[in-house]
C-alpha cells in the first residue's frame, strides 16, 4: 500500500518535472527556432559563470524575472478572481498529462510499473474534459480584469475553444471506433501491430482525415498564431491585458504546456505513442525478415525516447507554423471550425463506420 502511494507520488513528480522542464525548454526552442527562421541570432546573453550554451539559461532567467516582479492587480479588478484565473488555466492543462503513457512498463524490485501516472479507463474523456475546463481560466481572467480589451479577448477565447472542442471530439470518435477503448494505454498498445504486414498500425494510417481534423482543432485549442484570437496582440491586446509578473508568466507558460499536451496527444493517439516501428518486447522484427535482439531495458529506453522524440517533433512543427502564418480573423476562425472541421469530422465518422461495417 505504502509502496503504491510512493510509486504514484514519484510518477506524479517526475511527470510534472518533465512537463515543466519541457515547457521551459520550449520557450528556448521557440526563441531560437524563430530566430533561425528570421535571420536573427536569438537570445544568447544569459550565462552561468560565463557559460552561455546558446542561451539555454535564458528560460531560467525569464522565470526568475517573472518571479521577482511585483504582483500587480489593477484597483478596478476583482482581486480573488484575478488571482485565480491563471491558476485555473495552468492547472487544467497540466493535469491532463497524468493520463498520457510515456512508455511501456518497467520491472523494478519485482513490480511491474506502467510508465503512466494513472491508467484511466476513460482517459480520452478525461483529457477532453480538462481541456474544456481550461476555458474558465480565460473567461475568468477577462471578467476579473474589468477591461474591455480583456473582456473581448476572453469572450473570443471561450467561443473559439467551445467551437473547436466539437471538432476535436468528433475527430476522435473515428479513432475510438478503430481502437475500441478510451484508455490511452490501451490505444497505444493497439497501435503496436502491423498494417498489411509492413506499416506500423498507427492512428495516422487508419485515420488520416481524423488526424488532420484533430491536429487543426488542437492547434486552435492552443490559442497560438494563426488561431490566437483571444490574444491577438495587435488588435485587442488579449485576455491578459491586465496581467503582469508571475501571473502573466503562468498564462504564457500555459500556452507552451498546451503545445506539449497537443503534441503528446497527437503522438499517443495517432503516432503510436511510445511504440517504435517493428520493435517488439524482444527486439526489432523487420517485415523483410531480419531482426535485431534488444535487451528489455534497451526496449524501454528506446520506447521512452521514441515518445519524447515524437513529442518534440510536434512541438517543433507547431512553432514552425506559428512563425509562418498570419493570424485569422475571428469570423474566419469560426467558419473554419463549424463549416469545415465539424463536417469533416462527421464525414470521417461516417467513412470509418462504413469501412468497419464492410469488413
Amino acid at each position, binding site marked *: 500500500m505504502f509502496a503504491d502511494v510512493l510509486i504514484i507520488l514519484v510518477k506524479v513528480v517526475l511527470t510534472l518535472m518533465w512537463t515543466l522542464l519541457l515547457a521551459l525548454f520550449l520557450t528556448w526552442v521557440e526563441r531560437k527556432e524563430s530566430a533561425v527562421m*528570421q535571420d536573427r541570432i536569438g537570445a544568447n546573453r544569459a550565462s552561468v559563470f560565463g557559460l552561455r550554451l546558446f542561451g539555454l539559461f535564458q528560460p531560467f532567467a525569464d522565470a526568475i524575472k517573472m518571479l521577482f516582479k511585483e504582483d500587480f492587480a489593477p484597483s478596478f479588478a476583482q482581486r480573488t478572481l484575478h488571482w485565480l484565473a491563471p491558476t485555473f488555466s495552468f492547472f487544467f492543462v497540466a493535469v491532463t498529462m497524468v493520463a498520457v503513457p510515456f512508455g511501456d512498463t518497467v520491472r523494478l524490485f519485482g513490480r511491474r510499473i506502467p510508465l503512466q501516472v494513472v491508467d484511466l479507463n476513460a482517459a480520452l474523456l478525461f483529457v477532453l474534459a480538462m481541456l474544456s475546463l481550461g476555458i474558465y481560466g480565460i473567461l475568468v481572467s477577462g471578467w476579473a480584469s474589468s477591461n474591455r480589451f480583456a473582456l473581448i479577448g476572453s469572450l*473570443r477565447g471561450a467561443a473559439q475553444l467551445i467551437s473547436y472542442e466539437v471538432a476535436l471530439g468528433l475527430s476522435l470518435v473515428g479513432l475510438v471506433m478503430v481502437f475500441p477503448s478510451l484508455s490511452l494505454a490501451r490505444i497505444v498498445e493497439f497501435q503496436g501491430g502491423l498494417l498489411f504486414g509492413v506499416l506500423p498500425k498507427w492512428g495516422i494510417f487508419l485515420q488520416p482525415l481524423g488526424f488532420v481534423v484533430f491536429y487543426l482543432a488542437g492547434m486552435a485549442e492552443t490559442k497560438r498564431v494563426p488561431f490566437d484570437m483571444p490574444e491577438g*496582440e*495587435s*488588435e485587442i491586446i488579449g485576455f491578459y491585458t491586465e496581467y503582469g509578473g508571475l501571473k502573466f508568466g503562468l498564462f504564457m507558460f500555459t500556452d507552451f504546456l498546451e503545445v506539449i499536451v497537443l503534441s503528446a496527444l497527437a503522438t499517443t493517439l495517432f503516432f503510436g505513442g511510445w511504440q517504435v516501428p517493428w520493435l517488439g518486447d524482444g527486439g526489432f522484427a523487420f517485415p523483410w525478415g531480419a531482426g535485431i535482439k534488444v535487451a528489455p531495458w534497451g526496449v524501454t529506453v528506446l520506447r521512452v525516447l521514441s515518445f519524447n522524440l515524437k513529442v518534440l517533433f510536434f512541438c517543433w512543427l507547431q512553432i514552425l507554423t506559428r*512563425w509562418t502564418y498570419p*493570424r485569422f480573423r475571428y469570423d474566419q476562425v469560426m467558419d473554419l471550425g463549424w463549416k469545415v472541421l465539424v463536417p469533416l469530422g462527421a464525414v470521417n465518422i461516417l467513412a470509418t463506420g462504413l469501412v468497419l461495417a464492410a469488413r
Partner: protein
Amino acid sequence: MGPLTRIQREARPESMLLNMGPSHPAMHGTIRIMLELDAEKILNAEVEVGYLHRGFEKTCENKTFFNLLIYTDRLNYVSPLINNLGYAMTMEKMLGVTVPERAQLIRVLMSEISRVSDHLTCLAAMTMECGAFTVFLYMMKAREFLWDVIEFTAGARMTTSYIRIGGVRADLHPDWRASVSTAIRETRRVLQDVSGLIDQNSIFLGRTRGVGAISKEDALSFGWTGPCLRSTGIPYDVRKAHPYLVYDRLSFEVPVGEFGDNYDRYSVRMREMEQSLRLIEQVAVLLPDAPPLPAGPAVEPAEAVRGSRRQRTPGRIRLSPNLEGSEKERLDGLAARSPSVGVPAKEDTYTSMEGLISHFLFFMGGKGIRPPKGDVYFSVEGGNGELGFYIVSDGTDRPYRLHLRAPCFHVVAALEQLIKGRLIADVIPTFGSMNMIGGELDR
C-alpha cells in the same frame, strides 16, 4: 474628464465603446480610434488625429529658409530624403535655380531608396499586425541595407538633411556602388521571400481581400494620392504626371490595383518597390564616378588660414569629416553655385576674404536665402503619395507661410468610412495599409 466626443454622445446605450489608442500596439503611437461596438462589429467609428502635433508649419515661419530644412526630416521619418527633396525643389522653383545634372541623379537615387524603405516599413508593420512577424523581420532586414547606403551618403540614417536647396550636400561615398548593389540584391531576395510567404496565403488573402475597399470616386474625393490611390486603378503618379528631376528620361511603370482594397494596397506597394529598384539601377548606370581629388598631402585648415595671410595659396585642405564629399572641386557638380542659394565652398571661407564675407552673409540673419515676393506650390511623389509644399514669401529670409500637403492626412480621413460595419480585426490591416506616419499626418 474632458468633454464628450461625438461618438460618446451618440452611442446607443446597449453598445460598447472601445477606445483604441493613442496607446495601442497597432495605432503606431499617435492616433486614437473610438469604436462603437456590437460584440465584434463596428457600428460607428471616430478617428482622432493630432497626438503628434508639434507645430511644424508655424515653427517654419520663424526659421530661415536654410535652417528649416532640418525640420522636414521629421515629417515622414521613414523617407526623410523625399521630404528634403520636396522642400528643396519648391525653393528652387521659387528662386529659379537649376540643379546640376549629377545632383539630380543623386537625388533620384536617394529618393528611390527612400521610397523602397518607406514601402518596406509600411508593409512590414501591416503584416506584423496581421500576425506575420517573420515577414516583418525580413523587411526590416532589407531596410537595413538600404539605410546603410543612406548612412554612407548622408552620415545619418533618419535625420539626413542631405538634399539641400540648389543641390545636395555632399558627394556619394567612394564605395557607393558596392553598397547600392548589395542593397538591391538583398531587397530583391526579401521581396521574393515575402511574395512566397504571403502573396497566395489564404489567411492573408482572407484578411485583406475585399477588406477596406474604396471606390475610385471616393478615393479621389477624399484627395487620396500615391499607392493608395493607385490601388483603386487610377494611375496617378507625380513622377509621370508632372515629371521632375530626370524621371522623364528613366523608364519605369506605374503599377495599379483593381479593387482598392487592402490586398491591392499591399500588392501595389510590392510592385512599386520593384520599379524603384529598376530606377536605382538605371541611375547607377547614368551616374559617373566622382572626379578624383587632386593628389598630394592635404593641409590642415588652421595651416591654410595661416598661409592665406601671407597670400600663399595652399593645396588641398583637409575638411572636417562631416564635410567629406563637399570639397570645392566637387561642389560644381553637386549644387548650384550661387552665393544666394547654397553654402559657399569651405576652402574659400578659409583662404579668401571674399569667401569669408560670403559665408558670413549667407548665415547672417536677414541675409542668406531671400526668395522674391510671391507664392509657389510644388509637389513630389513621396512614399505615401503627393507630397506638396506651398510657400508664401514676403521677400525676407523666412517664409511668410509654409503649408505642407501631407499625403497620409487625406488617406486617413477615409478610415472611418472604411471600417464602419466591419469587424475589429479589420481595423488593423486597413489602417496598416494606409501607411499613416505620425510626423507627416500631424505636422
